[in-house]
């Protein structure tokens, strides 16, 4: 935790410096100059390492195997997801997600198959950052985390908690094995996103701003479980009625 504190202090310090520099003007992103630097770094790392590895992974492993691996990690995640359901007071969803774990761990052979989805128990997306959001905590400034990518102060803190609760972290004591599991999960997740990143290339005038604005909208949507209240419209974006 000392590490985390130091990181936070460094970020606040960098933030106050960045505050002096000109920023792009998005109120959700006061650290824009710092964030842009980290974004550029992540981009280089992604292009140089993760994307080629993910493409290789997709080329080498057959689809059913990739799906099995993706399902396996997804099933481990479901445990912490059901805890977050309960923390948010969504007891029914919590029991459904826990049932998913039981079902997929047994009939789904240690989570390699996601039978629960086929029988009407769809997967949900929850994490500790969303739980904090559901409790009413605002997202705080946008933050690009080195190697992990877009986040916010709230969700970054959420990630620290998620990392501690992670079953791979909790359950695997052998460090080399744990690290291989981390790496496999990262590659598997990145592979699932290959098509999405190729679309961002096409869509964005400014990839940094596009990714930021899309990310912030998506997190907001997740906190409200798909039904966010309408954002206050800009006064001038609709013609007078």
């Amino acid at each position, binding site marked *: 935790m000392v590490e985390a504190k130091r990181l936070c202090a460094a970020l606040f310090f960098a933030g106050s410096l960045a505050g002096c520099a000109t920023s792009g003007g998005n109120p959700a992103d006061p650290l824009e100059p710092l964030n842009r630097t980290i974004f550029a770094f992540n981009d280089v790392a992604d292009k140089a390492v993760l994307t080629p590895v993910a493409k290789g992974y997709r080329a080498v492993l057959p689809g059913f195997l990739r799906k099995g691996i993706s399902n396996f990690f997804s099933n481990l995640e479901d445990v912490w997801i059901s805890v977050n359901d309960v923390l948010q007071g969504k007891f029914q969803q919590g029991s459904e997600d826990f049932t998913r774990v039981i079902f997929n761990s047994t009939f789904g052979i240690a989570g390699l198959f996601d039978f629960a989805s086929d029988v009407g128990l769809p997967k949900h997306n929850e994490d500790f950052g969303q739980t904090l959001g559901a409790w009413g905590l605002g997202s705080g400034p946008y933050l690009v985390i080195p190697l992990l990518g877009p986040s916010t102060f709230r969700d970054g803190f959420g990630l620290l908690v998620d990392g501690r609760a992670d079953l791979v972290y909790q359950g695997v004591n052998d460090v080399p094995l744990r690290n291989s599991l981390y790496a496999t999960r990262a590659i598997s997740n990145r592979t699932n996103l290959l098509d999405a990143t190729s*679309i961002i290339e096409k869509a964005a005038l400014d990839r940094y701003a596009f990714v930021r604005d899309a990310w912030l909208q998506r997190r907001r949507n997740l906190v409200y479980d798909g039904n966010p209240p309408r954002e206050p419209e800009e006064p001038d974006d609709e013609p007078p009625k």
Partner: protein
Amino acid sequence: MKIPFFFLLACLPLLAEAQTIAPDALVKTITDEVAAVLKKDKDIQAGDTRKAGDLIETKIVPHFDFTRMARIAMARNWRAATPEQQKELTAEFKTLLVRTYSTALTNYRDQEIDYKPLRAKPEDTEVTVKSEVKQSGSSQPVPIDYEMEKTPNGWKVYDVKVDGVSLVTTYRDTFASEVREKGIDGLIKSLAAKNREPQSPKAGKS
């Protein structure tokens, strides 16, 4: 002179009423038609974005209100633009979206789409049609919402939200900062330049 004009306006939707397809039925018909073509078309599956673009132009574009989309993306700067600039912005924005989604279509692999029951009153003129696409790679379906408005020419889509991310408002900050730095003509130039970038036929594949 005002009264007949308003009277005429008021009558238009009534005239169109008979031929208006319900918004959810419209979305389903269009996506089913497009999906049927995509399933058969080997060229698009192999990454032919131009052919995918033609498919979008003929099947999807007529059901979108690009002027409103450009207006929402421009927010307060829309009023500052001349009618000529508004027209150019709309055209360039439309091209950008069509190009982007041509790439998306080449990635389509017979995913299953579920439609949620429409929650709307008959007199509503703005509705949200909700659907979910089941992904082959992951177990979590991706929600896709269509924001639609009733017009004299039937229901039109003015925003699409993929997993809560609006295809239109995501451009707001980019557009605003382009206008702040380079003016409205500068933004139009940036969009045109982006649209001239070569459309690599194998995007996202290799």
